[in-house]
């Protein structure tokens, strides 16, 4: 089983969000970056579990600059075998998908697994695009993945229940919460990661289809108004007249 796991780098959830250059760039100053949790906890860990039971390899791919290397090393420390970084600094989803597809096209991966979204931009589109570009099936928001022979059985959460899907490999998948449990690396894995291969590959030509014009922060949270329990009438009045929600 040859598995490719796509890893993205995102700001830690406790980061202070600010922008620079007239609100056109995210201010990375003092920000701690982590592996996107959907990529790490679910996509990567499930890939490793499959490898551990069926044999094979797990390769990491990231599209990003040299600043991606710490998160790639972490993925290697958790247990991936090798990694490739496509040396491009772009946030356009189609551009990224094209790079991943171009790299993996002739490498006969049985599975390409991504997290369902990044926790920074929440785009959720890269895996679908990769599948289309590779012309293989795509299953989104998978919560369970089993592989037997050349068939994958995948569960998805749908309103009110679970949908069970079967598909033939190769396959692209986006992983949602529940597919696996967070795996903490260990010291030996960290030391071993140092000597695992991390290839840097130049990007293929691809057009950038979108660009960011600007960012803005959500409005600051307003003050909390406390209303005594016996004063329900006042609460209704405020909801009508001030919050205007009813």
């Amino acid at each position: 089983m040859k598995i490719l796991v796509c890893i993205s780098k995102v700001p830690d959830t406790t980061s202070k969000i600010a922008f620079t250059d007239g609100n056109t760039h995210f201010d990375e100053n003092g920000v701690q970056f982590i592996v996107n949790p959907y990529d790490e906890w679910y996509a990567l860990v499930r890939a490793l579990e499959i490898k551990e039971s069926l044999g094979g390899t797990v390769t990491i791919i990231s599209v990003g600059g040299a600043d991606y290397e710490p998160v790639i090393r972490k993925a290697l420390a958790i247990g991936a075998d090798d990694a490739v970084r496509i040396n491009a600094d772009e946030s356009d989803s189609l551009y990224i998908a094209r790079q991943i597809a171009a790299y993996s096209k002739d490498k006969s991966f049985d599975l390409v697994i991504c997290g369902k979204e990044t926790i920074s931009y929440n785009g959720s589109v890269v895996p679908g695009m990769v599948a289309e570009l590779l012309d293989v099936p795509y299953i989104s928001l998978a919560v369970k993945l089993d592989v037997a022979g050349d068939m994958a059985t995948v569960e998805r959460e749908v309103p009110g229940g679970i949908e069970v899907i079967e598909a033939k490999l190769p396959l692209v998948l986006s992983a949602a919460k529940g597919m696996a449990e967070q795996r903490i690396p260990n010291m030996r894995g960290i030391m071993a990661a140092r000597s695992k291969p991390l290839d840097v590959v130049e990007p293929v030509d691809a057009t950038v289809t979108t660009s960011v014009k600007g960012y803005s922060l959500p409005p600051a949270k307003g003050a909390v108004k406390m209303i005594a329990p016996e004063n329900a009438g006042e609460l209704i009045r405020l909801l009508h007249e001030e919050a205007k929600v009813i």
Partner: protein
Amino acid sequence: MRTDLYQGHDYYLMDELLSEEQKLVRDTVRAWIKKDVSPIIEDAAEKAVFPKHLIRGLAEMGAFGPYIPVEYGGAGLDQISYGLIMQELERCDSGLRSTASVQSSLVMYPIYKYGSEEQRKKYLPKLANGEWIGCFGLTEPDFGSNPGGMVTHFKDMGDHFLLNGTKMWISNAPFAHIAIVWAKNEEGRIHGLIVEREMEGFSTPAMHGKWSLRTSDTGELIFDNVKVPKENLLPNKSGLGAPLGCLDSARYGIAWGVIGVALDCYDVALRYSKERMQFGKPIGAFQLQQKKLAEMITEITKAQLLTFRLGQLRNEGRATSAQISMAKRNNIAMAKEIVSEARQILGAMGITNEFPVMRHMMNLESVITYEGTHDIHLLITGMDITGLDAFK
């Protein structure tokens, strides 16, 4: 306890001095703590039990003997990584760190440094993977700061040694599978012996009633005519220097560990000072509280620099025992001061188990005493700089 919101503090951008692996080592331990330990630690401290199920997590992560070479089950990490592991463990609880540092520095280290190849192969892999837990018996009822006076002794009986005596205040003793025991031979020379739980005449009664280090088990080691096979003697070093060499390693770990305590208390106090409103503003806006917080981060930063440098020296094999004593002593005093200030910043909340501060405060009362008391480390520095021995 509340959700563990801890974030590290790095006022002088010390992270830039760390390698990628060292940062990953630290963040790994921090993630494990938040996931598996923070949610249960207050309860364990309240009940005064060592959460034994954590042994597996510690072992799997590689917190037992991290600097022992891979061929013996360790991870082959450097000394700064070891320090960072201790920092993150103690950031959560000194008792947890004690369990790991006894296993690493006081059990695996002497077997690795002073043991035979057979001993290394027999014990180290099982200690690294947590199958066996060890303890270190140096202190006796009548010999604490002065371990050279110990009375525990062994006699050569031809095909075995006969061991007699009592050790006291021994961390991990009640559930340890093996004990590294320091005892005198018939000529009065100190040697290390590996005593195994099954040996007849060996018992380890638990000690109770501790208000400090409540998540670490402490006990006695009683040797009543214990027959110890001759191959269980550590062959490659004897004399008081042998146990003191282990203590160097453990004390070095403590110097890092208590920075974790200080960081945790500073982190909690800083956050609280920005949230707690009095007289219409956050208490962090009052100069008196700012003075406390500013002094805390100043002292933490100084300790971080001192300890990082000590780590470099240790990596090069150049750190002296006296330098380690200085760091242990300085950092504990620093942490004690910060814990006490943090407790006051939290007001009444500071005395509850909603926050870790009071638990840290009680823990430090052990940490300042074991592995050489505050006074003893001062005398070590004094002797080092004057060349005059004030112990006797």
